[in-house]
């Protein structure tokens, strides 16, 4: 069995940690460069304000309901995300982080549903008190069903944040009220195809034959069909709605040598960065992770960090510098690392990016060098020229714009306690 841990309205919840006065107030978080709504509190969702709308289009609602708005504070969100992921990794030997605010936990070390429920409730309470962010948990035999269960946990208070699909009756009941378009991995086109065949709910789809699913939708749809029927077959999948680039691997033999792990992770990072540049985009965040083998009884310390770039980047050197810093500061001697990877997130078009006021990198030079290296590698084969491994002096991060303070990442911006 797996559990999906999903932070509720993550960016808004992060802001509320340091602004308890906003607990029941309508709050939105806006994207940095174009001012679109990227996170909404439940109060805002109830007003019918949709994800992604430009802020100027909701000016009337903002005035009428007193909606509080923030620019994205990636330093804060990244730090709280890292804290949450590290707490989660204590409870499982296999944590798969999928986005800044979601991760799958392998619960195969627990035998009864009661154990799984009580474990997830404990984690939820620990994180709510210790970090201040509320989470929802969905427990189920497959990751696609976990997403369904977590949705129920999030939307119905009666579950107190944790719901489980552990019997066939529960599975059918959950799927019968679940619109097909909401299912993980079902995009708009697939939904339209299925609706033409009279399929409205996830259960309608699951009850069609396997042959129907495979013929109509191909491999991805077939996998979804199997997962909805309780057959776990999705090992990794990028979230359909969130842009991210993932390079990760399970090693054939656990890695206990730091240099080897660094080498492997630098390669993932270089490949991910190349993919990013090929689609003319840059990223704001990078998740770096390495986990121990799942065959250990005791969960071992994991390497996990969400790195935030003040200036969005696709530069291999810059990404690798930050990656190595994370690996070197979190590496534990003697831990057999089994799975490792790099996820690039907060992806935006390279053309749209703004020059930062306090940027201490020579971007033009970096880019020219990167282009030169890419063209050499395109000619003579990947990795002909690659980054040698070295640790740079600490780079200062500067953020500009109207956003909340960097409460947890800059000593000058911490909260004040009145005495």
């Amino acid at each position, binding site marked *: 069995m797996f559990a999906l841990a999903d932070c509720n309205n993550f960016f808004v919840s992060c802001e509320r940690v340091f602004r308890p006065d906003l607990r029941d107030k309508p709050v939105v978080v806006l994207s940095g460069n174009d001012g679109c709504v990227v996170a909404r509190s439940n109060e805002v969702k109830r007003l019918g304000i949709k994800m992604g709308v430009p802020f100027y289009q909701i000016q009337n609602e903002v005035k009428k309901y007193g909606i509080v708005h923030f620019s994205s504070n990636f330093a804060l969100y990244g730090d709280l995300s890292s804290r949450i992921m590290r707490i989660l990794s204590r409870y499982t030997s296999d944590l798969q982080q999928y986005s800044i605010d979601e991760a799958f936990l392998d619960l195969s070390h627990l035998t009864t549903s009661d154990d799984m429920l009580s474990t997830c409730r404990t984690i939820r309470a620990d994180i709510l008190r210790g970090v201040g962010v509320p989470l929802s948990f969905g427990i189920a035999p497959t990751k696609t069903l976990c997403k369904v269960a977590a949705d129920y946990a999030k939307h119905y208070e009666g579950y107190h944040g944790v719901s489980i699909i552990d019997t066939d009756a529960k599975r059918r009941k959950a799927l019968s009220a679940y619109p097909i378009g909401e299912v993980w991995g079902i995009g708009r086109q697939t939904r339209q195809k299925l609706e033409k065949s009279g399929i409205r709910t996830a259960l309608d789809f699951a009850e069609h034959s396997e042959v129907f699913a495979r013929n109509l939708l191909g491999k991805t749809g077939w996998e979804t069909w199997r997962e909805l029927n309780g057959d776990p077959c999705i090992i990794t999948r990028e979230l359909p709605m969130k842009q991210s680039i993932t390079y990760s691997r399970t090693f054939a033999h656990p890695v206990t040598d730091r240099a080897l792990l660094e080498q492997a992770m630098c390669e993932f990072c270089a490949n991910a960065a190349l993919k990013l540049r090929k689609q003319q985009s840059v990223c704001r965040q990078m998740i770096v992770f390495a986990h121990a083998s799942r065959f250990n009884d005791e969960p071992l310390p994991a390497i996990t960090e969400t790195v935030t770039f003040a200036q969005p980047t696709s530069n291999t050197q810059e990404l690798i510098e930050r990656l190595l810093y994370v690996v070197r500061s979190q590496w534990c001697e003697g831990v057999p690392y089994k799975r490792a990877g790099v996820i690039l997130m907060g992806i935006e078009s390279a053309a749209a990016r703004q020059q930062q006021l306090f940027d201490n990198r020579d971007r033009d030079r970096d880019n020219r060098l990167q282009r030169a290296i890419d063209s050499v590698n395109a000619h003579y084969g990947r990795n002909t020229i690659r980054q040698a491994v070295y640790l740079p002096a600490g780079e200062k991060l500067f953020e500009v714009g109207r956003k909340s303070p960097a409460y947890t990442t800059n000593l000058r911006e911490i909260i004040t306690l*009145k*005495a």
Partner: protein
Amino acid sequence: MSERLLDIAGVKTPTRRMVLAENVHAGFPSPAADYTERIDITDEIIRHPETTFYARIDGDSMQDAGIRSGDLVVIDRSLQASDGDFVAAYIDGEFTIKEYRFDCKENCAWLIPHNSRFSPIRVSEENAFMIWGVITYTIHKLNK
């Protein structure tokens, strides 16, 4: 390390970026090489890194407890506040630091200042109140 320039496709870049070996070992190995661990005070001060936050003190209400304006405090949110703990509390729109007391008879909480010029605050249902975290250390700078 020298900053010789390497010319790749018309881009002048320091060779420093392309170093292939990190350390060059030469001469006699240092007998102290195996003893590089140094005391790290954060290990002592931060018991739970995931749930540790920091705040700056502003005001004099805790001065008799040795907590002065401008001090840095370490807050651990994972700890449950017990009677007599110093806490970071949120009350009526403001973060404050006080000693936490729970009155079983009256079934209410008190926030106790450590300065005779200030009065204890009785926390009732009407207050917007939460204990944000427990103060584990204060750091007071002596040398300006």
